[in-house]
């Protein structure tokens, strides 16, 4: 536990350069500056490690880095996505608070691999403390000569800036993030073109999640195989899981991939006040909800969670006990997506409001018999038809809540009150 991103967690001033270096930090970066590592070696190690994008999509990081036109004669950028906004997710915040140098080193390594000399860390607008921690770490790194131009007399240069967002969930979508970073309204771009070809300011750009970058230095220090061996087949390494909701000790846990869900639940102190588990959203609010039985049987890795009927996402495990009214929970989620839809494309702009209003009407006691079919129909029309994944994210919970807890919705519609709360 806590072997990679949280390696310094239990140490004094874990966020300081001193602590980071005492734990072997910047050793990989210094090797690069001495010319002892090539981009291809790094990409190979990452491929071996099985590291997959920790922001939610799970795209293999080594492969992503190999897509960048590193020899193109234009400015290239690396961007870190610290706009952690998915309900249930709180891991990147703690990386920035307790181990910011791992992100800096990870981004620096990325910049070297992709021949980008500039980087931005886009930090969620509400994250004031993490932002200042990261800024402090940047200053330390600059002062130590780890960032800047022609570092250590080499030809390697890397300038890194922190950028604070303005509080929009959509800016966690990588192309909306780029728009926002350019000073525009945060709205996703259609793809293709992908950021690797046309990204920030129209230039080739690689965007990775905070945890992905933070994992890179340790992977390269210990070797890709070491990391891969921590995890399981197809889900290399360890992963931060944010366990929240009706547990006794909600927290972030950095544990090996493939850990049984029930063990993770145990680590979080179990269900609060001795109640029983009712439902689990395993990967953040946009991933399908699972019943207790399905959750208790699953392992926490990409394939394990998929087998159980959901997605690993960002590893944001939301625990719901038997006092939870699923109609109310879904209504709250629907409101979130309705509120956070950027409004650019039709199905999401119009559909999220529709979903929320129907659910709200059911909650108000005005549900109609065909509302369940209506909700299923509307979510189905959003899925796959939007510019970015927010539409899917808004739709998927609706389908899974209705599939797994249909009787609660039917009860609410018929009786005008909650089956659970009365």
């Amino acid at each position, binding site marked *: 536990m806590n072997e990679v991103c949280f390696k310094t967690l239990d140490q004094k001033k874990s966020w300081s350069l001193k602590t980071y270096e005492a734990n072997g930090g910047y050793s990989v970066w210094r090797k690069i500056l001495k010319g002892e590592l090539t981009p291809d070696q790094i990409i190979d190690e990452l491929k071996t490690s099985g590291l997959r994008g920790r922001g939610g999509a799970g795209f293999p990081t080594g492969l992503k880095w190999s897509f960048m036109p590193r020899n193109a004669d234009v400015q290239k950028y690396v961007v870190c996505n610290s706009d952690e906004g998915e309900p249930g997710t709180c891991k990147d915040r703690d990386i920035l608070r307790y181990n910011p140098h791992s992100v800096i080193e990870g981004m620096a390594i990325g910049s070297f691999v992709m021949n980008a000399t500039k980087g931005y860390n886009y930090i969620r607008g509400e994250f004031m403390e993490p932002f200042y921690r990261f800024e402090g770490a940047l200053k330390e790194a600059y002062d130590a000569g780890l960032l800047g131009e022609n570092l250590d007399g080499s030809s390697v240069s890397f300038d890194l800036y922190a950028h604070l967002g303005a509080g929009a969930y959509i800016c966690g979508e990588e192309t909306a993030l780029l728009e926002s970073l350019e000073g525009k309204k945060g709205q996703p771009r*259609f793809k293709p073109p992908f950021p690797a070809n046309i990204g920030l300011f129209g230039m080739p750009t690689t965007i990775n999640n905070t945890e992905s970058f933070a994992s890179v230095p340790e992977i390269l220090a210990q070797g890709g195989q070491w990391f891969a061996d921590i995890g399981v087949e197809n889900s290399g390494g360890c992963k931060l899981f944010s366990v929240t909701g009706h547990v006794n000790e909600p927290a972030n846990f950095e544990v090996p991939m493939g850990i049984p869900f029930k063990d993770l639940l145990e680590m979080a102190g179990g269900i609060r006040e001795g109640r029983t588990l009712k439902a689990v959203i395993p990967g953040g609010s946009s991933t399908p909800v699972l019943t207790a039985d399905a959750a208790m049987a699953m392992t926490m890795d990409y394939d394990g969670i998929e087998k159980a009927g959901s997605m690993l996402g960002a590893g944001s495990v939301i625990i719901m006990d038997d006092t939870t009214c699923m109609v109310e929970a879904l209504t709250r989620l629907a409101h979130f997506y*309705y509120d*956070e839809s*950027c*409004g650019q*494309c039709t199905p999401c702009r*119009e559909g999220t409001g529709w979903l929320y209003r129907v659910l709200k009407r059911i909650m108000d006691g005005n549900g109609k018999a065909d509302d369940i079919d209506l909700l299923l*129909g509307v979510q189905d029309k959003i899925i*796959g038809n939007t510019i970015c994944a927010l539409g899917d994210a808004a739709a998927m919970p609706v389908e899974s809540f209705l599939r797994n807890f249909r009787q609660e919705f039917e009860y609410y519609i018929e009786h005008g009150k909650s089956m659970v709360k009365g």
Partner: protein
Amino acid sequence: MAKIEIEIDGKLVNARAGEMLIAVTDRESISVPRFCYHKKLSISANCRMCLVDVEGAPKPQPACSTPIADGMKIHTQNEKAKASQKAVMEFLLINHPLDCPICDQGGECELQDVAMDYGSDVSRFTEGKRIVADSDIGALIQTDMTRCIHCTRCVRFGAEIAGIMEMGGTGRGEDMKIEPFLTEGIQSELSGNMIDVCPVGALTSKPFRYELRSWQMNSMSNIARHDLVGSNIYTQTYKGKVKRIVARDNDDTNETWISDRDRFSYEGLAHENRLLAPQIKVEGEWKEVEWNVALDFATRGLGNSVLNNHQSDQLGALASNTATLEEFHLLQKILRELGSENIDHRLNVKNLNSPIALDSNVKLVNLENMDHALIIGSYTRLEQPMVNHRLRKASLKGATVDVINAMEFDFNYSINSENIIAPNKVVATLAGVLKVVLESKQQELPDYLTSVKTDDVITELAEKLLAEGQSVIVLGEHVINNDSAASIANLITNIAKQTKSSTLNLSASGNSMAANLSGFVPGKGGLDVNAMLESELKAYILLDVYPHYDFHHSIKAIDALNKDGAFIISLNSFKDKDVANYSDVMLPISCFYETSGSHVNIEGEIQSFTASVSAPSDTKPAWKVLKVLADLLELPGFHYADSAQVTSEITHQSHKSHVHDENIDLTTKQGIQIIWQKSPYAVDALSRHAISLQATKIGQMNSASMNKATAKKLEMTQGDEYLGVPAIISETVANNCVFVNANRSTQAGGQS
């Protein structure tokens, strides 16, 4: 790009790699519904209406933003594609009012049309619909933003074409509103195009509001004559009235856009100030009479005043630049048949001693490929909007633009160097540029250049023209106020020759190219307009002349025309106090879109048009009036059945090349220089009578701008009346210079 083959709905289609799918389906006439896509705007892919099924892709793909690749198989109509299209349609309609019967867009609404194919009969949406509050965005565009479907065409139009991002999307999600960022309303001179691009009834024409349904009107091709482009338009008419004007595609002239002036000036046609009946002055009183009486009166008047005494050199003809090619031709033909060469249309040019002789030798479409432009004396954006549009496109492609003006203007592209100098310094600056150019080519300097001073600014202007790439030198309308206009034109010709630059002469607007083509200028021994007025001729035929606006020396002109003894025949489409004062007979002529004829644009392209509506009331097309007048005067060669025969006569005649005075004189007058310009929406009588246009900020432009130092010399303070217009003190004006933009008749008018 490589030619490839793709399969659409089972049919093999040739295409170019990288083309967007929708471009291919459009070319192949395969119907794919869309709202946000517009061929002249950037792709936004936000409406999702054009989702189609691409084999191998897990999700449906938007045709507008899917680049095609060899062997791609696309289904636009299969179950998956249809399901997505119908889904999007349902979403678009849930918050749309569905009040088509009371919506102005009804009948020409893209949403309505597409809903017929993809919409459902019954709405499953039973929640409350979104309502959006409207704000007044000006006199031209009516908003009803509850109807908006957020396609952002208007936003992209502003940002990409108009060059002023006036509309934008504020707010998020369902609450996103398309609205102007500022409260002053829409300012762009191209704003009306937003109405054309809006697929729904969110943005509609305010002057046309609640007038008619599109299917009630006839749509006829016509040509707008307010500027040198001759934008292609459709006049939409109902029961003999022009009710609306929209753009007609022509990539050689106006692409898909038209200026607000071209779009909204038609309102003037129905103005109560139209001259509708022939009138003769009897013992100082105006009397409405039949046409034959008026024409008889006119011919007898001409006979008594000049013809019977063999004094045809005492007859003059003047015309404003709104006349058609055929009208210019017939009037000059009448004069020349009668033996007079006193013919002129350059009423607003200050110094006519030598003509402003500068060729235009660049096509509009090629303007966008220029690498550099030097604009001299023009606010192209408001004066020649569609020319400016091409220059803007060039600028967006990387061209540099230098400007020499008397005042800073708000160009909608970046200006490399903006040189603000008084008119009397232009000739010296250009002489300096020519000197640098000649020196760089190690050519001998003509005498007049030896003592010309150059500086860094002048050198940079020259170097830009000398640099590799294609340059154009644009001479604008402000030059007509310049005593050295002819020398300026000649200097430009020389600079252009030496630097292999193209030239564009925008110094005379409207249909002035037609006047030149038909020879509507003084012939050998003839008098120009200023000379005519000074020699107190005994008779005039005036074609659509409004003295306060049209003459540079308006006071002098009105005085001269009011002198006793001159017999004046006026052909006008609008009433005018001064015209009534000095004329003896007023013949009501039809206006734009009421007559057939031709416009000649800056490329020399003759664009002919037919009348969209018949002439109202007792008015007649001027070409017919002139033909009958010629018949009554028993002149030979006026047997025309229609205006096309006149056109054909013009195109078959040999055109005399004008003799240019190539003299360059660098001496200038000192003292305060005045540039007197009609404001952009006051260029002709029709625009001046278009009330909605006049209500816009551009329409209200009516000021004499000067800097503090000049104001002090003139003892002016802000708001004081200068030459009949309010003074504005602004440091954007060159020293010793007043820039007047007049939009209404004033007692001062232009001056010398």
